[in-house]
């Protein structure tokens, strides 16, 4: 009944090869070889602050390279070019009256969560606690609180900055499936033979993942300074990503914002804003909400 020597050798070899592949899968999944700290463990098992795949904290200055004429000056009444406003939205925008907003104490209408990233200014991002990322803006002196692991409490009074639920996303292809779309190749353990096949690996100093923020319960406000409205049922999804330009070595924060508003928009409105990292506190210039100025 002795096992032939060659068969034993083959079995041992096959086992060693299989074990190596499986170990590679697990170690790879745990972020070994990554330089970033965030990819080390599944963020679900760690506090959001410790699990941050990218450090978004610090001071950031908006650099207005696009839609300058809608951001650095107050657009003319009726200029809602590139905003997918519906008829009701146009009607409201055409009735914009900044003097009335000022008189009624509504000067912060254009500084709400759905618009604040478009207002030229600076951000100070820091952890208020282990589960709350805080964004202070010098323009309009607003504060946004990004709550990890929570959901909007019911019957909460709407506020300019609404309630923001935050999560780290993009750690694994599974998370991309949530949005539907095209097929996602998911080469997990079951497909470990793919380890020698196609596909990019994490390279360079950047790590996987980005910050996703979903904001609800916003007080109705303006998407633009000239009264382009969003309503009480508007929701907003934002994705924050940070990277370094290899040529200039400058560090950037890019925010992609998708506002969905069944009341005033024909389809979701997508905007972008980018911010350059600046030295701590540099240029910080708090200003109140102003209905008649760009910031």
């Amino acid at each position, binding site marked *: 009944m002795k096992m032939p020597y060659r068969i034993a050798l083959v079995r041992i070899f096959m086992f060693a090869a299989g074990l190596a592949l499986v170990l590679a899968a697990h170690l790879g*999944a745990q972020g070994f070889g990554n330089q970033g700290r965030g990819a080390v463990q599944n963020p679900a098992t760690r506090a959001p602050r410790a699990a941050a795949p990218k450090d978004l904290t610090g001071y950031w200055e908006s*650099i207005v390279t696009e839609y300058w*004429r809608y951001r650095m000056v107050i657009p003319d009444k009726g200029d809602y070019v*590139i905003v997918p406003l519906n008829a009701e939205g146009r009607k409201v925008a055409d009735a914009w009256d900044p003097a009335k907003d000022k008189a009624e104490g509504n000067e912060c209408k254009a500084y709400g969560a759905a618009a604040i990233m478009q207002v030229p200014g600076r951000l100070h991002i820091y952890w208020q606690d282990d589960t709350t990322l805080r964004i202070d803006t010098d323009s309009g002196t607003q504060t946004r609180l990004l709550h990890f692991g929570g959901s909007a409490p019911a019957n909460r009074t709407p506020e300019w900055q609404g309630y923001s639920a935050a999560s780290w996303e993009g750690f694994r292809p*599974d998370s991309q499936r949530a949005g539907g779309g095209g097929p*996602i190749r998911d080469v997990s*353990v079951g497909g470990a033979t793919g380890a020698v096949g196609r596909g990019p690996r994490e390279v360079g100093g*950047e790590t996987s993942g980005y910050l996703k923020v979903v904001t609800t319960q916003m007080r109705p406000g303006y998407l633009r300074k000239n009264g382009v409205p969003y309503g009480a049922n508007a929701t907003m999804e934002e994705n924050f990503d940070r990277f370094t330009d*290899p040529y200039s070595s400058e560090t*950037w924060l890019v925010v992609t914002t998708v506002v969905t508003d069944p009341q005033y928009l024909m389809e979701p409105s997508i905007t972008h804003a980018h911010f350059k990292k600046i030295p701590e506190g540099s240029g910080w210039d708090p200003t109140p909400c102003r209905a008649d100025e760009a910031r």
Partner: protein
Amino acid sequence: MRFRKSGLKTKGLYFLLLLFLVFPARSLWAQVDLTGEWSPRIYNDGRDVGDYTGIPLSEAGRLRAESFHPEQFDLPENICRPHSFDIGLRVAPAQLYISPELDSATQQIVDYHFHAYWSDFRVWMDGRPHPPEYAAHKFSGFSTGKWEGNTLVFTTDHLKEGFITRVGAPLSPKATVTTRVTRFGNYLTMVFIINDPAYLTEPYIRESSWVYDPQQVIPAFPCEPSPEGTIIPAGSVPSFLPGKNDILSDFAKEYGIPPEAALGGAETTHPDYLKKMKTMKTLPRTTTKHFERQG
């Protein structure tokens, strides 16, 4: 007997291997599938001649921009001239189709093919080097990419002289563009960072987004000069000599923007420029309904 014991040990190790398989493990790769049809959600911002707002133009860049005449696009040689890839992806409607090309033997991704209505290029993923500087420059340039986490990052050089706007802001053959492609669920966002030592004093950063749209059909784009010729007489190249552009200030007058600010430059992109603008004079406005012609 020795081999029988060894067989038991092997079975034990197989059991261990099974445990590894049963335990949840994440993907070996942080790969996100970008392939498929993407519908643009960047809305053409309809810049006018003289609108260089937010562009960090150098003096040389501004001189080139000011010499541009919109009828240059009507020259027979320019009728079918492709856009450089960056602006080609931003001119509405820039429907986009992304497909990978696989090496049939190794199943490695050799390149990603970006096909847009106005633009077409490949991003080489196989580690090939960029060609030497003297190699041919093309409107599509030469691009090599890598993955940084879930973001495809590619660098493009060997670009032909072109434009970064449709109103004459120039792009030199020395430019290098870094593009970051990130999929957020059903949204695809690209960040373009243009470094151009000839015409820009700072990196010019801007973004575009698309929505996954598997039903999209990109129409054909046949282009050939009209057999009847164009409206431009043969041998004539419309342009403005330095200081002779008599339509340059039209944009500033229509929008009520200080003419100096309308000419762009890195300084104009910062929030503090708003203070400086308050001290600048504007020209008498010719209209406040400029937006109506943009539809």
